[in-house]
């Protein structure tokens, strides 16, 4: 496998795995003080959220290259195009994940 493909695949895999592990661990630790909410509930909710975010992550990874390329073709510098792409990715992922988190909390506590 050529270096570009392997590094892209590694970055995508590492990105998603780190996101899942980071969210699971952080949510478990942060919800420890909340009464009537066990670690099992937290793990279940975190798992549900990460599962809901998987299609979004796939979409974000799929548009990782075309969006900066389009921005560069419009005349922007590669650095600016990469920065805009990263900011857009963070905004999209965080916004949808927050909607999914609210949805999950509402479902499991109703």
């Amino acid at each position, binding site marked *: 496998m050529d270096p570009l493909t392997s590094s892209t695949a590694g970055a995508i895999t590492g*990105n998603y795995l*780190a996101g899942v592990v980071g969210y699971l661990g*952080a949510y478990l630790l942060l919800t420890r003080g909340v*009464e009537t909410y066990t670690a099992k509930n937290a793990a279940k909710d975190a798992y549900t959220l990460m599962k809901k975010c998987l299609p979004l992550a796939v979409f974000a990874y799929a548009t990782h290259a075309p969006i900066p390329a389009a921005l560069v073709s419009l005349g922007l510098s590669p650095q600016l195009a990469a920065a805009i792409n990263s900011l857009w990715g963070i905004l999209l992922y965080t916004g949808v994940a927050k*909607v*999914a*988190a609210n949805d999950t909390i*509402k479902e499991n506590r109703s």
Partner: protein
Amino acid sequence: MSEKTPKPNHLEGPPTQKADVSAPSQDSLLALSTGIAERAAAGSVLEEATTGPRVAGKNEPEPVTKAEPDAAPLAHVPARAESGASTGEPAKTTPTLAAQIKAQGVEMLRMYATIIKNPTLIFKGFGEVMKDLFYELPKSLLSRNEDTEPRPVAEQLATKSSQALALSEAMTVAGSQLGVLAATKLL
């Protein structure tokens, strides 16, 4: 051939248990026939006597007086056992794995459809995360007042999920670098 086969263990029991089963029944018969035993003593002996036949043969009907003492232990029995054999109703069938996956997929599609129909939800969600991180978190850290009422659990969980999302995003930077290193070394 049937003589050589050993008896099942649950019917035999230890010798001490046999003595316990037989002795109370004789005492209770004696107490009932003579009428000498006092009410309290007879009650305890009768209670022991009724437990004897239930251990020996499970098909015998229980006396009516045993319904009340057994009610307390039944409280610890899980609801699954109560709804099944005791009432005679068929047990509730749990959905299969395929049905569960399908239901979750439909639910996920519904959520994405809602977001696509209302794209402002993305900005609203991002705004909530920013508010939780840069307003609610410093506020809770700076003003630790014991007199204030605790917030609702759902609200607390929403704030915690925002913080967890931010930490998760931060970890993805390191995760991506680790992934690149691992892939270039392995692949």
